[in-house]
């Protein structure tokens, strides 16, 4: 089953200096049998699932630049037995653990807080772990996030997304820290309420992937990064001069003014952050700020 890689092939090709012992042969034989059993089991499971009544049909995007059979992108079909409450992530994990251990996707917390399993499911950006299978039309098409480079199968390169997040100085800055190390910088409940939704971002990248502008303009900061700037700009504990600096960052050529209020980011955000609203509010702040100099 496993295909040799060039580097290991070279090693294998070298003449063996030692004769393999009887024990080695026995072990190798045992492993081959184990692999054989594994393949049989997978085939049986797949057959059973195909024939069973309550199964879900998934069409999953596959691509691996390193493996000849997967170099050309394609869709694989998996039949997964349906259970109540099953999510897209559950189905993918079932397919991986039961039929094809090379099926690759990111996931971790499976409770919508780590943000690693944003996928393109039936034509929309969603978190695999909080998308119920029962709510989707079959066959369920699972693809990597659009507008991002695919590393392998459903895994995309997130570097650009992280770079944009970091471009907005995504950290709290204040010049009026209280003196005592146990004294808080007081914040009104109203102000916390104002920034609350913006702090919920889990960096999943769904918004960026859904944004037409970001797709066409690689330098556009994008909804997540602008929301991050909003989180700090609207926090009353950051002083006026720092807010000024922030507005300069988001007002740059590829900042807030690129947004054409299509609301696609807001629609797909799994944490219900009103991203478009936040971007518009920063535009208003920027205008107000510029008017001050007149």
């Amino acid at each position, binding site marked *: *089953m*496993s295909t040799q*890689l060039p580097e290991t092939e070279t090693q294998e090709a070298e003449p063996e200096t030692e004769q393999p012992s009887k024990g080695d042969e026995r072990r190798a034989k045992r492993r081959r049998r*184990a*692999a054989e059993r594994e393949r049989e089991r997978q085939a049986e499971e797949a057959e059973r699932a195909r024939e069973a009544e309550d199964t879900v049909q998934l069409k999953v995007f596959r691509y691996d630049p*390193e493996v000849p059979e997967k170099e050309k992108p394609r869709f694989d079909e998996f039949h997964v037995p349906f259970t109540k409450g099953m999510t897209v992530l559950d189905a993918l994990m079932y397919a991986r653990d039961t039929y094809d251990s090379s099926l690759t996707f990111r996931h971790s917390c499976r*409770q*919508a807080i780590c943000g690693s399993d944003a996928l393109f499911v039936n034509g929309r950006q969603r978190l695999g772990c909080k998308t119920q299978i029962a709510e989707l039309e079959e066959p369920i098409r699972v693809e990597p996030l659009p507008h991002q480079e695919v590393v392998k199968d459903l895994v995309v390169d997130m570097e650009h997304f*992280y770079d944009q997040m970091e471009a907005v100085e995504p950290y709290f800055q204040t010049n009026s820290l209280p003196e005592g190390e146990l004294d808080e910088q007081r*914040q009104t409940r109203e102000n916390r309420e104002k920034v609350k939704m913006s702090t919920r971002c889990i960096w999943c990248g769904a918004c960026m992937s859904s944004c037409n502008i970001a797709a066409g303009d690689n330098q556009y900061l994008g909804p997540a990064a602008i929301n991050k700037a909003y989180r700090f700009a609207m926090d009353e504990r950051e002083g006026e001069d720092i807010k000024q600096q922030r507005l300069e960052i988001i007002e740059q050529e590829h900042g807030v003014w690129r947004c054409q209020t299509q609301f696609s980011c807001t629609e797909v955000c799994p944490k219900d952050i009103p991203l478009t609203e936040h971007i518009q509010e920063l535009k208003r702040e920027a205008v107000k700020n510029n008017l001050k100099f007149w």
Partner: protein
Amino acid sequence: MYEHDVIVVGAGGAGLRAAIAAQEEGADVAIVTKLHPVRSHTGAAEGGINAALREGDSWEDHAYDTMKGSDYLADAPAVEALCTESPKETIQLEHWGMAFSRDEDGRVSQRPFGGLSFPRTTYAGAETGHQLLHTMYEQLVKRGIEVYDEWYATRLAVSDDERPEDRTCHGVVAYDIQSGEIAGFRARKGVVLATGGLGQVFDHTTNAVSNTGDGVAMAYRAGVPIEDMEFIQFHPTTLPSTGVLISEGVRGEGGILYNAEGERFMYEHGYANNAGELASRDVVSRAELTEVNEGRGIEDEYVHLDMRHLGEERIIDRLENILHLAEDFEGVDGLDEPMPVKPGQHYAMGGVETDENGETCVAGLYAAGECACASVHGANRLGGNALPELIVFGKRAGQHAAGRDLGTARIETGKRGEYEVGEVDTPVTPGEVTGREPGDVAADGGAAPDGGHEPDGSGARETRSDGGATAELTPDECVERAVTDERTRVDALMSRDGTNHANIRAEVQQSMTRFVNVFREEEGLKQALRDIRDAREAYQDVAVSDPSRTFNTDLIQTIETRNILDIAEAITLGALVRDEFRGAHWRKEHQERKDESWLKHTMLSWNDGTPEVWFRPVILEGEEKAYEPKIRSY
């Protein structure tokens, strides 16, 4: 080879805090993490951070509650460090901008939590961990600390002196998930393990899929003792279908538990006549399961947690996240109906043995956070004590690793000071499969690699063959050697035929949930050891079938599965040897706390594949007072 002063493995709360602290000490620090930092499981913590911040509260009360909650199995020096430093560390987060919930006067809010004598749990809605993780990652970005994200650390580079107490850790070996490159990370000053929990040892857990106990297993196999592994916390309120956590904050705010007959069983069946739903977690978990076992559960599986009477406004203000979780993962609207809950694995009180400065018995090796056992939680962790643990001990470990003098620790590590050797009667031989040879299942990841490196046990220093003569290995060579061993292991796993890890993993998880759960009995524990043994045999044939070096999750999970095996066995061995009932550890045959014989920590040493049990007395003497064991009632 990459080189830094301090290498932090893991980027959750403890790892990030350690990195910041080390950098503040002037060290060149880097983080190696198998996820991106914002994906770490700290983000899933909901409840809050215990800190004595208010008038009427004191760190002494916090320490008292913690010692009592631990069922007198926590070490006082560590608990006192936790409680004296938590206020400052919590406000430090506030100064970094963390979005805590606020009182009317603009100060951070605090709320009651189980087992606390004062409402000292500081929180940010029901998403405290998410806010904490992101706030600390922001500080990391601000400071420009280097992060090797999606690099999976799989092996420690430790010298092979015979006694672990004489060994030195020179770095780690990690595997770049995106490219498949295996590289050495040399740490000039120290390695801090901050790899988090091990919930994937069980099949019903609140833990992330990535919480496979990697750091604990790596350190264990490198000879570092692991401590109190039998103490696994089961959280009483997890969603039955997925294990998703419903914060203790719900009960803290006044949520009520009901059985199928609509009885408020915590009171009506006398489980905790004073504290009711806010008794500590072990008490509530057992109460729930007893209700189910006695036929008063709903669908024979769970009980109800009701928060409707709190009113929409308060729920939205303080527990909004819970509404989303119940809706998305269980299809229940918490405003309209009670939520189904049952106990699930939640937290490992045990872990890598450290002192109160985060240092292990191996020079240059530190551990902090859930993977470590300092020990502050003893037999049972109080809700709201995990997050202060991350920031307090993350900071201390980071500082110490960077060279700051934190004074002599009062807790001793390794086989130093007072300890006794123990024995455990097992139905099968635990530890490695005997008769294995190099390359057979090259999936070890321990200190002394398989074959070729001073197997004579002569106590020789790290040696190398040098044209007949031997000389000490330099730190660089020690790391290089570990890299070579790891490459051999991975090549073997990838090039051969064999069985898939997934079934092996599932079988261990199911056995653990069946036999080493909230309720434990001797025969069940023995059966779990047999099952783990079978899984070890099966693992001999494990192979990675995905041939790709790019993002090979098959390979990662195969390596993780080996960690799960070693950890599962350690938990079960500890549970079998401790024949008493203390904190989270319940034994059917032993229904009492046995202070005369069990005020001691269970220690396990790997000893090149032969686990050895020994004990160290618990330290109940604090700086100014001793904590007298009392009957734990709530």
